[in-house]
């Protein structure tokens, strides 16, 4: 019996690449939106040894979908207007209603695109028009000419359509690392950051790829510049209620500032200065100044809220054990080569 033949035509366009265009035309300023009202004076909890207590599992889910670079139409405007926020809130409510449908419609068709509900959803609309909060245009500063040749990380060619080896996959796909910024910037799921404190140390366990950043609070100089790693050498200290973490000693040319550490890789001169401030029981203000003098003409700052949600927890991310995608992608490429050879 011959298999039944059904012709299905489906055109799906998914454009999910991070935008890295430079110097867009600035749009005229829209009705002046107000920055979120400053949090009223709130005294946060302290640990038994007297440090500000920022422990818990936090997520950047609220800013899922917020672009790193600000779309040109917003110009220098960092925050949405109240009307724009209301529209976005209504959209989230519609998504939430749709997501409650456990079963799909009887006429649902098969397709190759992943559905939106595979990922996490923002609970509230992100107030920001971009993750970049400084410079005022919300755009990545100009890239230095020498950095433009650094498009492909060493030993990890991203997205090779015909991978010959495991080395042709990014560090993310290989379950190795997403880098510091790639581990905390919001992506479609796995945005949990579990913070655990002890006297003299803060540890951040990241949900996806499951890296634990152990940050000593003793201050002092970084380790020798000869000692380098994917996640760098972190040193933390408290400035009032703010945890300040300075990280250097990165291996250059491994991960970038795009989703999951993708995009143009940063250099070994990268210095990150992160600031974590608990501004309410359920919100941490997160900011990171990115200073990479071998890549960008000037430092710039990314910021967004990290929030706590009832029931949110870091599920185990035992990535290596279940990474069938690696085997399937390599065997798929070999099958394609074999087919092409047979056609010759």
């Amino acid at each position: 019996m011959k298999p039944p033949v059904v012709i299905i035509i489906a055109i799906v366009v998914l454009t999910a690449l991070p935008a890295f265009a430079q110097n867009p035309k600035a749009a005229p300023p829209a009705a002046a939106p107000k920055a979120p009202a400053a949090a009223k004076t709130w005294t946060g909890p302290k640990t038994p040894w007297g440090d500000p207590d920022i422990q818990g599992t936090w997520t950047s889910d609220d800013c899922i979908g917020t672009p790193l670079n600000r779309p040109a139409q917003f110009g220098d405007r960092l925050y949405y207007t109240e009307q724009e926020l209301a529209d976005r809130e209504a959209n989230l409510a519609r998504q939430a209603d749709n997501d409650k449908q456990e079963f799909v419609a009887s006429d649902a068709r098969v397709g190759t695109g992943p559905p939106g509900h595979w990922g996490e959803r923002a609970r509230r609309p992100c107030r920001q028009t971009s993750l970049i909060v400084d410079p005022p245009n919300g755009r990545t500063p100009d890239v230095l000419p020498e950095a433009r040749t650094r498009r492909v990380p060493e030993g990890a060619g991203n997205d090779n359509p015909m991978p010959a080896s495991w080395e042709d996959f990014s560090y993310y796909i290989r379950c190795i690392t997403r880098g510091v910024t790639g581990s905390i910037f919001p992506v479609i799921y796995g945005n949990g950051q579990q913070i655990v404190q002890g006297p003299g140390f803060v540890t951040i366990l990241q949900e996806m790829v499951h890296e634990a950043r152990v940050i000593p609070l003793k201050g002092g100089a970084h380790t020798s510049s000869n000692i380098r790693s994917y996640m760098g050498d972190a040193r933390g200290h408290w400035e009032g209620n703010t945890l300040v973490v300075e990280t250097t000693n990165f291996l250059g040319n491994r991960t970038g500032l795009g989703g999951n550490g993708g995009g143009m890789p940063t250099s070994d001169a990268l210095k990150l200065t992160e600031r974590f401030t608990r501004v309410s029981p359920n919100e941490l203000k997160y900011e990171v100044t990115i200073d990479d003098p071998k890549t960008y003409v000037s430092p710039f700052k990314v910021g967004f809220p990290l929030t706590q949600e009832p029931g949110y927890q870091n599920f185990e991310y035992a990535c290596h054990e279940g990474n069938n995608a690696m085997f399937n992608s390599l065997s798929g490429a070999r099958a394609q080569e074999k087919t092409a050879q047979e056609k010759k």
Partner: protein
Amino acid sequence: MRKTLAILTIAIGLLLAAVPVWAHHAFSAEFDASKPVKFRATVVKMEWINPHAWIQLDVKGDDGKVTRWAVEAAAPNALLRRGWNKTSLLPGTEILVEGFQAKDGSNKANGSIITFTDGKKLFVGSSGDGEGPPKQ
């Protein structure tokens, strides 16, 4: 087997452009959009593993011979937070699976829709009408 495994022909003008976001699930690298599959099967085991869950299935052919298939589902975190639990696909459950076969021709597929014997349908992975992942 040939009756239960109906291979549909598809004309699709796409290659997923979302690889950097769905990097662990690079559909176009692993699966063949021109090889849709649809077959009845019995659940053997649901594997709750990252980056994506897998469902082990037994497919019985016309000759009575049983073939093992593995069908990829969403990330376990996404399934759990969506309400799936350990009883959602119990061993022994009879289901109809629709998806796309692995490029290497092995008995693996990217799951799209599961239909239970009472007619209810459940998204396992892909949706032709899905809005896709949020943009970065």
